């Protein structure tokens, strides 16, 4: 990865003075790397304290072969990523954090072939924790696939990542 990508993206423990987390650039960086890149997540939209990521349907991510319904694993990943980025979106900067817990209610099965969108919001940040919630849907938030609530622990950058 180039130096520029590191700054736009994130896993850099020495951010430049006055660094501003740009949700769109950050998300575009994430979605090219690791598990997020493997699943094919895409940036969708964002506001002051929320962000939306999308996950297009793919045959190799299916959980029930007979029906073509997406596995719930990729939906956990999508909600984990979106809620995580909502914290940096709200803060306007990047701080190292790890998932403390994540709770998900599966309201209904995803529609085979349809893109899943996760809308995630960070509704509170305390000194050591960030509180998040999110909805996975297919374009209509009033007809959700899943609801999530979670907590991220804000941690020291020492040992956070192993580049």
């Amino acid at each position: 990865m180039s130096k520029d990508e590191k700054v736009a993206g994130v896993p850099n423990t020495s951010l430049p003075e006055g660094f501003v987390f740009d949700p769109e650039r950050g998300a575009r960086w994430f979605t090219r790397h690791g598990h997020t890149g493997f699943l094919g997540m895409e940036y969708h939209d964002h506001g002051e304290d929320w962000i939306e990521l999308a996950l297009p349907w793919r045959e190799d991510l299916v959980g029930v072969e007979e029906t073509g319904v997406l596995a719930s694993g990729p939906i956990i990943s999508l909600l984990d990523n979106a809620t995580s980025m909502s914290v940096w979106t709200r803060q306007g900067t990047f701080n190292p954090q790890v998932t403390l817990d994540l709770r998900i209610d599966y309201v209904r099965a995803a529609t085979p072939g349809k893109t899943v969108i996760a809308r995630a919001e960070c509704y509170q940040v305390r000194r050591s924790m960030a509180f998040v919630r999110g909805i996975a849907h297919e374009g209509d938030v009033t007809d959700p696939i899943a609801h999530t609530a979670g907590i991220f622990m804000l941690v020291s950058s020492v040992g956070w990542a192993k580049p």
Partner: protein
Amino acid sequence: MGQAVSEYHLPPYARSMGMEVDHVEDGAPVIAMDFATRVMGRPGFLHGGAIGGLLEMAAHAALRAELERQGSDSRIKPVNISIEYLRGGVQERTFARGEVIRAGRRVANVRVEAWQGDRSRLVASSWMNFLLAPPKT
């Protein structure tokens, strides 16, 4: 009964994530997943979603095995999951195994744990509830 369980068929998502049945322990399959870029979150560590996906697969496999023992071919639908992330998943093979707490007529409750080299040092712990539906005819 071990025969049917060890032949547990993993769905496309699990296979593309590199998950496999490692062995069967007290009737429940232990699902394993090797470390690779495709399961990495922050550099050098497992992605929380990949851990979640592995936990769900182990919960599903444990419940399927239990239902087989009961002679049931009910369909299994995930209702909810709660995951506690206990420590960072490092660049090693990860294992997960579910324990069916109760499999009733309509609902099943499963506890699942994930670990790496040392079984006593869990990477994640979770519970999961499933809705049991009669097989489609």
